[in-house]
Structure formats: C-alpha cells, structure tokens
C-alpha cells in the first residue's frame, strides 16, 4: 500500500502540465546557454587559466566542461525556484483545492500521508537533477566535442582538469550531491507547506530563507559554513583533483540533517492543525 501511495503521489505530481513546463524551461535555457558558449567569447577566461597552467585549451572546451559551466547559473537560480515551487505545492495546494480534506476522510494517518508526499518529492528532485545533467550533455553536445573536462571556480578556489572518463565520473558524482541540494530546498518549502498557508506563501518563505542564508554566507565569510546554503555548493568539490571526502561527507550530512528536520517540523505542525475548508 505504501508503494502504491507513493506511486499515486508521483502520478499527481507528474500528471500536471506545469511540471513538464518546468522541464521544458530547463531544456530551453540550457540550449540557449550552450549556444551563447559556442558563439561568444565567454570561455576566454577559462582558456587563459588553462593555458597559464600549461594545458591546451581547445581539447578542454568539451561537452563535459560546457555542461558543467551551465550548471552554475541553473543551480543558483532555476533549481531553487523549481524545487521550492514543487515543495510549496505538495501539501498547501491540496489544502487550498480541498482535495486534502477528501484524502483525510480516509483512514490514512497524517504522518504517513506526509511521508509519502515527501518521498515523492525526493523522486522529483532526482528526476529534476537527472534531467538537468542529461539536458546539459545533450545541449552542449550539439556544439562541442567529447574531450577533456576542465573546471575553474575562483570563488571556491577550485581548479581541475581530467580525462573524459574521469570527468564523466565526477560529473555524475556532482549530480548525486545536487539531488541532496534540491531535496533540501524542496523539503524547506514542504515544511512551510504543512502550515496553514497558501502554496505561494510557502514557496516565497522558503526562497526568502534561502536568499537570506546566501546573503549571510557572503557577508560573514569566516562563518560561511554555519549557513546551510554554503553546503549546497559541495557538488563542485568533486571537480578538485583530490576530492575532500571528509568535507563532502560533512556537508552532505548537514544537508541531510536539515532535510530530515524540515520533515519532522512539518509533520508536527501538520499533525496539530485542523483541516477545514
């Protein structure tokens, strides 16, 4: 029954046109970014850094490199927006529409209902990130050849050059951690969605908290790891030559801890509230 209930939640989620609209926007944006990478000189700084470090730039301007660079703006802007929109809708939209009252006239416990929705949210996060990675490779593949993988992020002080095989491994590992990031954001919005508020309010609250955390993290750099959003950049550490596994594990655990806390708080609030039209 539990699996059937999760499948039903997924059916509701993926039955909406809006979900596919989001995926369509992702694809279109990635295609646009990839085109800009091809026809502008935006890769010049990377080329200079590569040449300065003794690497030939041309073989490094590959599918993997461009696909990864496309992830940065999407990860910072579109990913939080999509994850927060879906998370904010999960409970509050059903409460607003009135379908929640119909569900809760059945003998399912509130906690069980929330857990099924939350797990459906996890599946959505995985699909979203999977498509993000896949669309990136497809769109970059239109203009750029397969080759070496290079990554340079001066803000996080990351620089790495890998052969195609290793690069693909790192690319996939980075996506695994991006799932944790997307699920963290979705769970934050999901928690607010359990309160007696409108779905848009849940999304806005979640995004506001995320942006506040980003601002604090940038203002107080000495304490940046105190803010959860700092740990959402952890996927980029896979592009260091020697992956700091301990730090990656620590950040992943912090994100998982926050995510679980959001579920617990959401369950407590939802359990206590009255469901009325």
């Amino acid at each position, binding site marked *: *029954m539990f699996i059937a209930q999760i499948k*039903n939640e997924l059916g509701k989620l993926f*039955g909406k046109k809006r979900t596919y609209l989001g995926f369509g926007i992702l694809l279109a944006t990635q295609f646009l970014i990839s085109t800009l990478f091809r026809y502008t000189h935006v890769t010049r700084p990377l080329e200079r850094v590569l040449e300065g470090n003794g690497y030939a730039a041309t073989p490094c301007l590959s599918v993997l490199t461009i696909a990864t660079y496309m992830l940065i703006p999407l990860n910072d802007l579109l990913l939080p927006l999509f994850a927060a929109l879906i998370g904010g809708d999960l409970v509050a939209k059903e409460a607003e529409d009135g379908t929640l*009252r*119909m*569900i809760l006239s059945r*003998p*399912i416990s509130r906690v069980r209902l929330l857990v099924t929705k939350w797990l459906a949210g996890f599946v959505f996060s995985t699909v979203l990130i999977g498509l993000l990675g896949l669309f990136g490779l497809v769109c970059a593949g239109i203009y750029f050849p397969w080759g070496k993988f290079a990554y340079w992020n001066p803000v996080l002080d990351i620089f790495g050059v890998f052969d195609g095989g290793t690069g693909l491994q790192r690319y996939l590992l980075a996506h695994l951690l991006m799932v944790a990031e997307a699920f963290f954001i979705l769970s934050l919005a999901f928690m607010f969605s359990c309160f007696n508020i409108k779905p848009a309010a849940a999304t806005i609250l979640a995004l506001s908290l995320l942006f506040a955390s980003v601002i604090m993290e940038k203002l107080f750099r000495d304490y940046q790891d105190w803010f959860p959003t700092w740990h959402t950049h952890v996927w980029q550490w896979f592009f260091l030559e020697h992956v700091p596994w301990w730090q990656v594990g620590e950040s992943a655990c912090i994100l998982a801890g926050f995510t679980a806390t959001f579920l617990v708080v959401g369950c407590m609030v939802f359990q206590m509230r009255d469901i*009325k*039209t």
Partner: protein
Amino acid sequence: MIELRNVIKKFGGRMAVDDLSLTVPPGEIFGLLGHNGAGKSTAIGMMLGQVWPTSGSVFVCGHDVTAHRHAALLKVGAIFETPVFYDYLSGWRNLKILSAYSAPTPPERIRTVIDWVGLTGREHSKVRTYSHGMRSRLALAQALLPRPELLILDEPGDGLDPEGMHEMRRMILRLHRELGLTILLSSHLLNEVEQLCTRFAVLQQGRKVFEGTVAEVRTAPGKVLLKTPDFAAATALLRDRGLITGAAEKRFITLAAGRSTAEVARALVSAGLLVEGIWQQEQSVEDFYLSLVKTPPRN
C-alpha cells in the same frame, strides 16, 4: 455508529461547537440541520479526525476518532459540499488514487461503484470535462469505494440544479435502502432533511437546540384551524375552560397542553356555538426550524 460526548471546539476565542452530544444509531438517515456557520462542518470535521476537539470525545463505528482514527474510519465514506478532484486526471485515476488511502481496491470494485453512480462511459475522461452533477456522482463513487457502513454527507446538494438535487436525494435513499448504510446528512436545506431523514438535530451557534424525529416535529402540538361563525365568542369560551392558550388570525387556536380537538368541539357544541370545521395543522419542519432559530440559544 456515531457518538459525540460533550464535544467543545474553539477556534482561538471563537466557540464553534459548544458542548455537543449526539448519537446516530446504525441504519438511520440522521440530519444535521443548521444555517451556515452553525457548526455542522466543524462537527463533521471532528467525526472524520480532521478537526481536533478542544474537549470531549468523538466515537465513530465504536472507535475513538482521536486515538484510533484508522479503525474508526475504515468503513466510512464522506462527501463534502463542493466535490473537488484532481481535474487534470481522469475519473478512474482519481478513484484509484483515493482508494489507495483506504485499502487495496481491485479494479472490479472501482468499475462497480462507477456503474452504481451512473458514470460508466465517462470514467476515463478528465474530471475537468465533468459537469457539477457528474462530479457529485464521482464524489459519491469515491465515498462508496471502501464498502462503507457509514456515509457522511456534508451538504451534498450544494450547487446542484433542481434536477441534480433530486437525483442526489434519490441516490441517498437508494443507498440507505439497498446497501443498508447509516447516513449522516448535514444540510441547511429544510426540505432535504424533511424528505430524507428519519431523525435530525438542529445546531445553532454551535449548540444543539433540538434532536428528534421528523414525525415528532410534524405531530407536535401546534396550530389548530377552527372554522366557526363567531370566532371571538368561541375563543373566549375555550379560554375560560382552559382548553386553549392562544388564538390568531381569527381562525387558528393553540391547544393547551394535554387537550385535544375533540374536547374543543364538544365544548363549543354543548355551549350552542356552531362548529363548521376543526382540524390540527400539521407542522412543517420549516415552521419548526424557524421557530427554533428565532429563539436565541439558552446560556
């Protein structure tokens, strides 16, 4: 089937349900009557474990809803005033989703309830293409899926056209007759309660101000029509003899407690007054309800 014991529900400082005790025995169609905001939906919310009572206990199918919600609601179906579904999915898919929250339901059962409510042929169409009447029938179908013993209907006729309302009432009676369901019907439509319910309770400002049968209401001592050429002399005589307590509109008298129309006729005839006709006016639920709600609830 349903038992509420001294239930109180407050929303902040506002009293929504005040010391409500109610018993719905099995096999009955029980009406919950009251104007909008009287506390009917809150009471139903508490029966379904959606609204937590501030104090008191709610038992459904012999189980405390607060402590054992799963056992209490296992054999309960419910319909709410505005039938809402996942519009972007088909009727069939909606039923499949909703049935998964109760117990595993084979497709044959879904087919049976669709057939029962008369939606066969439209079950695979998206709900957004359904009329209000079809949505109401789909709501009934979802309520019937877990083979309920108790059906809770919260203003099921709301928003339906006269034909749809007639259809819904016919369906309710059929459910009661053929499936032997206990039905709790909340409504603010007096004729609906009058036509369908064997017993009903009236809520006013969260308080129960009446509970009884429709027959009791109809036969309650009320107005008696008296046709006599000299109404003033007749009522004066009847008052003197303590047979009536009031007279109105030069044709209606109100009998004193324990007095009958036969006694009145005998008294008038023996006093030489002509009686052209005398008969008890049957009280409608509407008259009774209006007389109740015009009276402020006791503190």
